[in-house]
């Protein structure tokens, strides 16, 4: 894989000899480009070299060098490794040209970089705060920004151990709460944030030559039974038809990245569980891969098999759960969900037996997994994989797939074409249901996925029904992988080296990505050799998949919006982080 990338990179430096410089810092890879040349290079990458998929956009605050860096990860949808492009600007008033006109999938990610790091993207169509709110003071991921409960730059805090002078965080704050305001701030002078900017950005249709009817703005959420959590959509309606839609998130923004940069590397593992809280095992997987890449270690054979086993069980669990939810959204209230949850409980029993917790498994370690699988649990998994789960899957297929209402409401609704899916950086089932056979497990194999026989299911209509069928088929393929894992799993150690609380991570950057059940889950980690990551960024698949929500919904009926959202399968813990 690296050779292939090498060929491409030399052609890139040949194409832009003056403009592009290889990133020569130790532990870093990719290319540095000046902000003014960024758009030209990105266009050439897309149109001439086939890097049509902009996976991740994020910023890094290099405070000691007084630089802000924006990092772009480009991929080809035909597979292969990443091409990493970086551009550096001054920390004071950083402005970078926006790539949203070229790669619409960058829209939310650039808004996030603006919100959290204060990097302004010129030419961005809608540069508003996304995870915090308009009016929030400062840009929290900047290294000199301190949260109200700030204690020290990095953990472990001296107050905890070994001295152990523990105090309540509230005691040191003048408000005795998690609050801070700019000096001289007067709350009575504050005019509360209104959504005017948001409403102004919504499109309306021109109806001057038609019957003049009012176009209504409707807010769905954040407390709404079918938004899968605290998610809000603002919809412009012409009658029942959706004219425009804007998703609003951040209602569950838990500062994952800020906390992650204070934590030590290992302390982040349990936090990744809480990203996509339906499938914690896959989140562990991505983070473990990213850090292992930096550390240069390889887990032992048995651990690799256990990891794949857990990731595939998680995929099954997530997909059956999401199908249950989709049916909920279609109006089949809770009955299909009960069938789905029955299987979920059985898989959670396995997770509890191996990791000690039902949902927040915290099971992976750098270089292996935390505990071995007991013999009787292995037997349980075997029974599930060979007997129960395939049977229940067929049952679900039989009940739902040809149901007249399901077909009537799902076929041809919420269509996303292949070209748009790639442009909008959609991933996972959303991308594959639109006819793009892109699965990280095959396109850029990690762990031991190259040893197993399995197909990447693809559907071509890009509607809700195809997303449903694709998930069904993916569960079959997961079971196929699981059968091979159970047949081949060797005995042996489950962790390379001794278990340790503090890992030594050499300086450098790494991007670990896995095909999570919801799409490409990536972790971008920058280490400067200290016990804490300098930058810790999560490329959350559902966050980026939501970029295409508006496009899928335009022209559909309001009742279908809920179903379309269900078919994307979002989890707010991951969207908002």
């Amino acid at each position: 894989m690296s050779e292939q990338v090498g060929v491409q990179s030399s052609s890139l430096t040949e194409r832009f000899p003056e403009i592009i410089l290889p990133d020569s810092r130790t532990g870093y890879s990719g290319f540095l480009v000046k902000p003014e040349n960024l758009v030209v290079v990105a266009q050439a990458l897309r149109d001439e070299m086939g890097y049509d998929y902009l996976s991740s956009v994020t910023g890094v605050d290099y405070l000691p060098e007084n630089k802000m860096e924006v990092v772009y990860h480009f991929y080809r949808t035909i597979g292969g490794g990443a091409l990493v492009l970086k551009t550096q600007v001054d920390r004071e008033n950083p402005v970078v040209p926006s790539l949203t006109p070229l790669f619409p999938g960058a829209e939310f990610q650039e808004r996030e970089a603006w919100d959290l790091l204060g990097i302004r993207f010129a030419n961005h169509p809608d540069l508003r705060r996304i995870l915090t709110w308009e009016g929030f003071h400062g840009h929290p991921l900047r290294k000199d920004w301190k949260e109200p409960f700030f204690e020290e730059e990095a953990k472990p805090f001296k107050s905890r151990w070994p001295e152990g002078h523990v105090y309540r965080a509230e005691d040191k704050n003048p408000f005795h709460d998690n609050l801070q305001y700019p000096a001289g701030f007067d709350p009575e002078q504050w005019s509360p944030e209104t959504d005017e900017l948001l409403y102004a950005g919504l499109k309306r249709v021109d109806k001057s030559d038609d019957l003049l009817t009012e176009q209504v703005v409707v807010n769905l959420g954040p407390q709404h039974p079918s938004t899968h959590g605290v998610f809000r959509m603002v919809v412009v309606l012409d009658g029942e038809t959706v004219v425009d839609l804007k998703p609003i998130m951040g209602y569950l923004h838990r500062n994952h990245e800020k906390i992650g940069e204070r934590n030590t590397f290992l302390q982040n593992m349990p936090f990744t569980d809480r990203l996509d809280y339906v499938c914690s095992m896959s989140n562990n997987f991505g983070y473990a891969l990213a850090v292992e890449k930096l550390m240069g270690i390889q887990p032992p054979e048995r651990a690799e098999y256990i990891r794949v086993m857990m990731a595939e069980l998680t995929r099954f669990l997530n997909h059956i759960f999401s199908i249950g939810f989709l049916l909920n959204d279609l109006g089949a209230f809770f009955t299909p969900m009960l069938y789905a949850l029955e299987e979920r409980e059985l898989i959670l029993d396995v997770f509890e037996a191996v990791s000690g917790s039902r949902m927040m498994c915290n099971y992976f370690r750098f270089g292996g997994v935390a505990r071995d699988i007991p013999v009787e649990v292995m037997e349980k998994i075997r029974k599930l994989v060979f007997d129960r789960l395939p049977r229940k899957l067929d049952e679900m297929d039989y009940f739902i797939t040809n149901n007249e209402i399901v077909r009537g409401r799902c076929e041809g609704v919420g269509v996303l074409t292949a070209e748009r899916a790639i442009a909008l950086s959609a991933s996972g089932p959303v991308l594959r249901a639109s006819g793009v056979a892109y699965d990280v497990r095959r396109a850029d194999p990690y762990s031991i996925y190259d040893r197993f026989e399995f197909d990447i299911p693809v559907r071509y209509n890009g509607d809700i029904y195809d997303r449903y069928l694709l998930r069904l088929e993916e569960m079959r393929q997961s079971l196929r992988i699981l059968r091979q894992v159970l047949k081949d799993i060797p005995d042996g150690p489950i962790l390379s080296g001794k278990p340790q609380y503090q890992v030594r991570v050499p300086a450098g950057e790494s991007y670990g990505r896995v095909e999570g059940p919801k799409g490409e889950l990536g972790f971008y980690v920058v280490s400067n050799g200290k016990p804490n990551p300098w930058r810790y960024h999560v490329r959350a698949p559902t966050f980026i998949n939501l970029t295409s929500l508006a496009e899928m919904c335009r022209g559909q009926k309001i009742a279908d919006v809920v179903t379309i959202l269900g078919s994307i399968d979002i989890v707010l813990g991951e969207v908002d982080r």
Partner: protein
Amino acid sequence: MGTESLNSPGYDIPPEMQSQVAITTLDKIYNWSRKNSLWPMMFGLACCAIEMIGTAASRFDFSRFGMEVMRPSPRQADLMIVSGTVTKKMIPQIVRLYNQMPEPRYVIAMGACASGGGPFKEGYTVVAGVDKFIPVDVYIPGCPPTPQALLHGFITLMKKIETQSLRSVPWYQKTPGEPIPIPILGPDLMDPRKFDLIKQVCSQREEQRNTEPEGESTHE
């Protein structure tokens, strides 16, 4: 709960009538009916909501406790299960939902985050416990609490309801209760009840900054 346990001691009912007649106090019968028909609001915030759904499903099945009717509208609910991390962006809505619930109303803080901030307490947009804004009846520890823990929380709430008296509950007083003022999103979350404190601290800091040599960071 049969009529036997409803009957207040001291009143002898002939054995043949014990299954039909109970002599009891208003408090007792009120609490008895109240606690056996709690309607939770269908309201999920984060990870704990998934466990709440798990509790509603077949293995744990909280309809055994008379609470199978989950209502998405606060107007029809009398139990709010705050299931997950409460963020500053969400708390205005939570307070509004709480104000919209008809009395009598109860609140369960499910999980570490809702009880006190949990693992995300140090985060800049996390409210360190929903009880900073709305009164909580039962706290359930865990991250997330298992369905068994949630069921235990329900039973604890029922026990609490059993001990309430119509004379002392906050609803049914002479003057109606005030709604909780809805917090405002400013540079940070602002509780209208604390405007004076905010003003005072911020002006102090302004003075400090003016007297200090320039170029110092404003953050503490």
